[in-house]
């Protein structure tokens, strides 16, 4: 056990640090660009210099780096909190490992480098209005027509669908077998005729998610990943990567921002950080954040051996999302009456805490609710039995549904 860099790791860190120092885009360069354009500018620059998706094989645009090297790069990039990003996570974090495991070589060579460079952006088409936590209850159907499949139905909660080029899609290919056995997995060109995208206005007032409607959308059979009926298994492999990649805990309030706030606001004319109740809360959050960080480091060893991220990774989101919510809420308490004001000019950290308070409920739901995450830990890590289920062993078409 040694938490210090080896000589080789230190050299890699220095290389990464130097490159970032010279290449991180300035505010002037980003001025006037939209969120997606900013992210693409930075991603392309990284790709051209060999700093994008570094763990991927070289032939797909990566550099065959180790998991530890990825962590080192992440640590160095984190020193630039204003770096654009966020739009490539689903593609690079979830679709890519799924493609690597299930797609044909020719497809990997064609799709992955463009995903790494940020030229093509991917989204995820899994959830449906009637299939959230019970994802395998999805109803969007695919019917075979020659060498193509014809898709009809509706997906929901699709981040970034409006600017994406491809999506990973799970559909029902056979309603007459048991729920999990009638699914198949595809990737789809988001510019295909018959796809219609509608933004969903969230409770925060933003619109990051979409409803995606499919009307007679045609997908070549060659874009199927895994066998017909094997879709659930492929989807699980994607979801394990989702839990590992969302595991960082969503954006928003960082411990450092809260600490800084506690140093500046006062309680009884003294900095809040000197108040013992404030210290106790901050200490608890620090412990959980630190625990997650080192849990992540420990799982690196398994990743370094090429193992899949296991169900243990569900812990990241389960801990980070509720904690971030509590931290944001507490930050506003520290502001006392002025906590009610959400104004970029007036509010501490340009309104970060209010913004997080409104954004974080979504993180406790996206990618598996807190409750589903706890079930995964209970059943898949601890080995506890499932609840009895009324949908087991009967064809999907006979499973009871609501209205």
């Amino acid at each position: 056990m040694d938490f210090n860099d080896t000589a080789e790791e230190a050299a890699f860190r220095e290389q990464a640090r130097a490159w970032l120092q010279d290449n991180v885009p300035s505010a002037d360069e980003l001025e006037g660009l939209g969120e997606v354009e900013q992210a693409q500018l930075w991603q392309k620059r990284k790709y051209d210099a060999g700093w994008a998706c570094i763990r991927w094989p070289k032939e797909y645009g990566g550099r065959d780096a180790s998991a530890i090297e990825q962590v080192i790069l992440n640590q160095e990039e984190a020193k630039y909190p204003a770096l654009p990003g966020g739009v490539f996570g689903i593609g690079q974090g979830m679709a890519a490992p799924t493609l690597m495991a299930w797609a044909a070589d020719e497809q990997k060579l064609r799709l992955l480098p463009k995903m790494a460079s940020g030229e093509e952006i991917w989204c995820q088409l899994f959830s449906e209005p009637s299939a959230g936590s019970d994802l395998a209850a999805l109803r969007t159907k695919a019917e075979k027509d020659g060498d193509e499949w014809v898709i009809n139905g509706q997906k929901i909660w699709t981040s970034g669908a409006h600017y994406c080029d491809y999506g990973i899609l799970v559909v029902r290919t056979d309603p007459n077998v048991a729920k999990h056995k009638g699914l198949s997995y595809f990737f789809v060109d988001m510019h295909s005729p018959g796809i219609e995208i509608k933004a969903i206005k969230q409770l925060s007032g933003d619109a990051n998610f979409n409803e995606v409607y499919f009307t007679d959308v045609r997908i070549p059979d060659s874009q199927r990943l895994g066998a017909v009926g094997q879709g659930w298994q492929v989807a699980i492999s994607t979801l394990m990567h989702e839990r590992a990649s969302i595991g960082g805990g969503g954006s928003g309030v960082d411990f450092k921002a809260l600490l800084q706030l506690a140093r500046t606001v006062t309680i009884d004319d003294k900095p809040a950080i000197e108040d013992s109740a404030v210290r106790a809360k901050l200490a608890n959050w620090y412990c959980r954040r630190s625990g997650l960080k080192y849990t992540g480091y420990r799982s690196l060893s398994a990743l370094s051996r090429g193992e899949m991220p296991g169900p243990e990774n569900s812990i990241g989101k389960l801990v980070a999302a509720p904690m971030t919510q509590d931290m944001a809420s507490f930050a506003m308490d520290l502001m006392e009456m002025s906590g009610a004001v959400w104004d970029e000019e007036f509010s501490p950290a340009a309104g970060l805490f209010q913004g997080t308070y409104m954004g974080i409920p979504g993180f406790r739901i996206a990618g598996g609710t807190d409750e589903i995450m706890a079930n995964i830990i209970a059943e898949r890590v601890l080995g506890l039995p499932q609840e009895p289920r009324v949908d087991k062993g009967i064809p999907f078409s006979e499973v009871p549904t609501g209205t």
Partner: protein
Amino acid sequence: MNFEFSEEQNLLREQAQGFLAEHCPMSKVRAVLDGEASYDRELWQKVAEMGWTATVIPEEYGGLGLSYLELVVIAEELGRVVAPIPFSSSVYLATEALILAGSIEQKERWLPKLAVGEVIGTFAMAEGHGRASAAGLATTADGGALTGTKVAVADGDIAQIAIVVAKADDGDGAALYLVELDQAGVALDPQRTLDFSRSHSRLTLSGAKAELLGSSGEGWALTQKLLDRAAVLFAWEQVGGAQASLEMAKEYAMGRYAFGRPIASYQAIKHKLANMYVNNTLARSNCYYGAWALNADAAELPLAAATARVSATQAYYFASKENIQTHGGMGYTWEFDCQFLYRRSKLLSVNIGSEGQWQDKLITAIEQSNAA
């Protein structure tokens, strides 16, 4: 960077598990809890024969000269079985104090005996209720003689030496003193204890002969350093106990049926156990960092130790109380073993200072590193 124990350390863990399964089943804890003896003397001797008490003591003083990474492996396993022996007092505190601050003569005199378990050491700090402070110390030294009263001295009745925190002979500061307990100026009276498997005593010093440990006046800083080092080791014991609580709860929940199915299949129970797993995992990961910082004597030790300590204290408390809850009525009986973990979790959490005290130290450490 490397975040795993070595193969040798994992082998040591297996060996320790096998040894403790044979020599420290819960029935041994129960025997001490129910009986007159203050500890399991036979187990203590066997543990010493295994060399565990000698783990980090340098070879020149009769120890094995191994690293703290070996010692934390042993600490976790002892915590898991709720071992009724004075390991934390003697190894994490008294031995550590000597390694940290003892003169060559003091080390030569005591470490070889501590290494073989022939001498049991302990640590005496508290004088009453509430948080101790350097200014509040009422135990005083006068020409190498200590006078005052210490309370809740863990394993005091079976120890031969105590490391005592007292007001320094010269000036206002604190100092650490080594006191041999078998002498006229020392009285030890047992105090009834939350965890009957670990005795505690009141230590009355009436001009007791004492030797200064380390330099006078710097005793408070030395005490904090000692406690930081001990906190990592305590935290590993606590993580072991927390894990044992989860395993006990799981085993019961799998076998207990209600409304026609195992209670482990109900989400209310599953989520309870999942929360235990989450707390235990976070605490364990913080303990990895603490173990590294202790072993490397890293500048981050105060922060790493407080982080490990706070999260391990919380994890053990949560797991041990919810283990009883998972068992229902039977968990509240004398007959069931849940009580051992519940008792020990609180004992370990106050033995070297409360959760609140360590939360406070954690933030202090962050603020100091920020100022530096």
